[in-house]
């Protein structure tokens, strides 16, 4: 089982990359009691039947690992949300893309801790590929404050994401952005 809410985001994000998306929008919005993760991509999308199967832990399309019998990414998210009073929604259209929305109940005892978002966002941005990512981060009941940055902007700023120095800078950047919460 995943250890932090950031782990779930990594999983959802990778699904979008593996769906062949060129544009991925990641929204992480939180207030005092809820954390909303929304990942929207323009990947290959799913038919209603594929959408149903994607939520079954004992189904995988076998393309990534031909001998594998399980696909646990989405089922782990769903299981956690069902057990903690969260919400889950999945929309997809073949050829258009997929939108996954997970709302975590931060007040439930069994909801995993958030984890270090600066590490998560660094790793999301550094995930290999030519896709672009738009990250939208917001705190407050509405969208009181937060920040927004694209992978393209960060590539232009720091260059290769495989370089240790660039990765350290990227993390430092996100750490400074995350410190905006509650005026820290």
């Amino acid at each position: 089982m995943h250890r932090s809410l950031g782990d779930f985001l990594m999983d959802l994000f990778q699904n979008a990359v593996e769906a062949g998306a060129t544009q991925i929008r990641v929204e992480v919005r939180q207030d005092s009691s809820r954390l909303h993760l929304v990942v929207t991509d323009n990947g290959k999308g799913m038919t209603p039947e594929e959408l149903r199967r994607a939520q079954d832990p004992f189904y995988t399309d076998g393309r990534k690992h031909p001998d594998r019998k399980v696909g646990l990414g989405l089922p782990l998210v769903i299981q956690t949300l069902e057990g903690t009073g969260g919400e889950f929604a999945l929309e997809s259209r073949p050829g258009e893309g997929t939108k996954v929305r997970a709302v975590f109940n931060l007040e439930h005892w069994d909801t995993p801790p958030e984890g270090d978002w600066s590490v998560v966002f660094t790793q999301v941005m550094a995930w290999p590929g030519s896709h672009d990512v738009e990250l939208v981060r917001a705190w407050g009941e509405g969208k009181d404050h937060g920040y927004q940055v694209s992978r393209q902007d960060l590539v232009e700023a720091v260059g290769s994401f495989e370089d240790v120095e660039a990765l350290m800078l990227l993390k430092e950047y996100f750490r400074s952005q995350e410190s905006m919460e509650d005026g820290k």
Partner: protein
Amino acid sequence: MTLQELRAMREAGKKAMDRRIIEDKTIEIVVGMGTCGIAAGAKETLDAFIEELASKDIKNAVIKQTGCMGFCHSEPTVAIHMNGMPDIIYGNVNAETARQIVHSHILEKRLVDKHVFDRPAKDIVKEN
């Protein structure tokens, strides 16, 4: 920190690097970040590699993320490819083991025996 400040810091770093002799990137570290790896703590493992390489001022390494390498029972898994050492997949690599790999495998060219799991699959690490 603004994007402009980030860019300026990167440029300053690049200039400092230019003054040194720049070695080719001869070390490749690939961290398995599939669902199984993430559940076993691969995020912390990857972060530990970044921090440790930076603290040891190792400039000739690249760090990559990949999906599941097929060894879910030994996650987090890490493939290391570098000159002078055999290609290795390490298993059960937590943050502490990651620091040990940097110290022993990368700096001293000694295997971390307890965590040697396998050779990497050919589609994970490209041959030179």
